[in-house]
């Protein structure tokens, strides 16, 4: 596999970035969590703030260079230290993405349970060429991600911040069509599983004493 390099320079970058009011409020709360002098620890949450603000303002959740500079300035860090963190984590999109971010978990448990089918459904329905690409209508970007920590309900498809669990080809197609229609199906297991209990309901601890 040839890895996608996001060097952050091949597409237009906004000329400027400044935190809006909502972001400012969020930042104040976040920064307060860290002891004085350790504000740099807030870099990851602040990068999320940037990404969400971009989503609000442009419909695409990504982190532009100027946004990283704004984080650096707010936290008193050298900009390169923010670039290092932002490019290290896959959760930060270093270039513009579609309206919905389809994140297919490709790690072993999900893969064994059919994540290839989920990915195929994404390609077919969302009309995305492959991982790291965006559909022509700008609606969907597809990424392969590592274990999302939801393996019990594998395979997982994460859309933006929501997990959709127990996916297969059909349910993925349905989900994407719903998204396209502007609906937002409730996240969680699509086969009605109760949290991470066995399919069809709990099998143990059925006789809760005192009930």
């Amino acid at each position: 596999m040839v890895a996608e390099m996001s060097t952050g320079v091949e597409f237009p970058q906004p000329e400027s970035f400044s935190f809006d009011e909502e972001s400012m409020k969020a930042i104040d709360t976040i920064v307060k969590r860290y002891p004085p002098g350790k504000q740099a620890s807030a870099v990851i949450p602040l990068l999320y703030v940037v990404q969400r603000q971009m989503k609000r303002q442009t419909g695409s959740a990504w982190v532009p260079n100027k946004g990283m500079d704004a984080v650096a300035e707010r936290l008193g860090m050298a900009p390169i230290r923010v670039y290092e963190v932002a490019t290290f984590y896959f959760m930060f999109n270093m270039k513009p993405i579609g309206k919905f971010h389809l994140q297919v978990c490709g790690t072993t448990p999900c893969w064994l349970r059919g994540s290839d089918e989920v990915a195929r459904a994404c390609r077919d329905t969302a009309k995305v060429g492959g991982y790291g690409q965006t559909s022509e209508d700008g609606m969907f970007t597809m990424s392969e991600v590592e274990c999302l920590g939801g393996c019990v309900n594998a395979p997982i498809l994460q859309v933006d911040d929501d997990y959709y669990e127990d996916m297969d080809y059909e349910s993925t197609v349905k989900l994407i069509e719903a998204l396209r229609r502007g609906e937002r199906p409730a996240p969680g297991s699509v086969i009605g599983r109760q949290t991470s209990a066995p399919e069809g309901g709990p099998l143990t601890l059925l006789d809760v004493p005192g009930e």
Partner: protein
Amino acid sequence: MAKVTVDGIEVEVPNGVSVLQACEAAGKEIPRFCYHERLSVAGNCRMCLVEVEKAPKPIASCAYPVADGMKVFTDSPMVRNGRRGVMEFLLINHPLDCPICDQGGECDLQDQAMAFGGDASRYREEKRAVKDKYLGPLVKTIMNRCIQCTRCVRFATEVAGVPELGATNRGENMEIGTYVEKALTTELSGNLIDICPVGALTSRPYAYVTRPWELRKTDSVDVLDATGTNIRVDARAGEVLRILPRTNDDVNEEWMADRGRFAFDGLKRRRLDRPWVRKNGKLHPASWAEAFTAIAAGIKGRKIGAVAGELVDAEAAVALRDLMAALGSNHLECRTDGAAIDASRRDFYTFNTGIAGIEEADALLIIGSNPRLDSPVINARIRKRVATGGIPVGFIGPRGLNLTYAQDWLGEGGAVLNALIGGQHRFNEVLRAAKRPMLILGRGALARPDGASVLAAAWQVAAQNGMLQPDWHGFNLLHHFGGQVAPLDLGFTTGIPADIGAVWLLGAEPVGVPDGAFVIFQGHHGEAGAARADVILPGAAYTEKDATWVNTEGRVQRGRLAVYPPGEAREDWKILRAASEVLGVRLPYDSLAGVRARLAEANPVLAGPGFEPHGCTDTAGPAGDAGGVSEAAFLPPVANYWQADPISRASATMAECARTYLPQAAE
């Protein structure tokens, strides 16, 4: 202290040092890439593996502290195997381009692969490719070769104080660079080339020039700033091809400033390589004999004086002084920038604390100097002190300069200095609370009408704030060039009277030379001095002579001839000696040893290399009225770091730097 046994050799090392250092103490060489003794420990290359008794796995010795009774093995089968494995991994993505790599022959990776690696590669897959990065006109990058040791990242952040390099992306995709393309804003960038253990960062001007084994290496001293950086001049076939720093912990540690390192191409351009004599208003090529005869005729019956420039060696200066004395003149000057230096006592014009002494200081006041441009290496020392000791730094000069460390900006002009003398300034408190306070006075701050007062006032601040103690001398003058102190030691301060009839310019600008005066210019680069001259004598540049240099500390060091001067140019003291003969006042020495004996006689401190740390027992200050400091702001003394002297002004590399870093100043 901890007792450690390394391969059966018992050594005692301080607690907390690394196993790698203990191995070195035992005389065992440990291969390494990421570890560098002047940088923080990264522990990411794993080349330094050793075996420690009872440890289940080999350990990275650079990042592992010693423990008492530890038994270390540096050459066991486990270690050899481990190193071979690490080497194989490092080479997986490293291109096989040694034949076209400028690091070839002096590459840590090459050497260590030979010494510790296997003999063949088992890797058959594709290698990763990384885009080269632009870091400025001096450092060339071939990022395929990078082994991601992060030395460069740590150097830029820790030593140079410009956190602009980093490692972005991760794993297989990790890349070293600035992410957003830009030239590194440091005057120490050449050190990245030295510090990179492979050929990823190499010298742009030196690209494809030669191989290290073809070079003749000569130890010398840099004079393009006043640090006195110890250098090695690498030359081939009479041409300087590069200049590298040598380690001297008292002076430059192992760093070097970019001007000193890269300006040497100016040694080949715009050189004076033959004598010239002015006839009927025009300069004509001449022989040495004709030039000397013209001088004899030109100075006859005239009052003569001599001016020494900023790149003048002590031998030439003493010969010039002797020649003047023999001609009955005592009109000598070297302060061509107009700096009101009082040379009546040596500690009035030297960096008395010593460069290494900075590390003992616990408070610093900088007056009218931008040490980052005056001497990038000294600035790095200050930065080191601030970074490790967090000492307060007060700064008087332009606001908002990035010195690479936190400074307390006190004001931009004389008013602050006056307040400090009154003892009423808030920074007085800081200084008084310190045990080893020091101040750095920029030479540029003395080159203004009230310069003498600035000097006296700075001294007074030093005296009043505990900087002058019997075992501590906290008063420091920071000069700009390596040839500025020796003439002061030799009394080139008597001045040139306005009615002078003839002036001998030794590499000096013709400042204060009256119209109609007969001018002799002796030097290696003809600028204003040569244009004004009636006779031009081609001299030798600092790489072309055995000479004594005195740095801003007053440290006496010797440079050696690396290449011969071009054409008919000669070593300067020899020119003066030859001229004296024609002028009928033969100087009494005709060997280097002879001049040096004379030098020792003229001023005993110049007898031989050395620098004695000293305190201050006599706090009486320089002449000059400490109360006469005007309110005027201290201007940044060095406007164009890249083109500050005749050599760097002739350098194409430096011109390129000026275009990159000072686009507004470029012609």
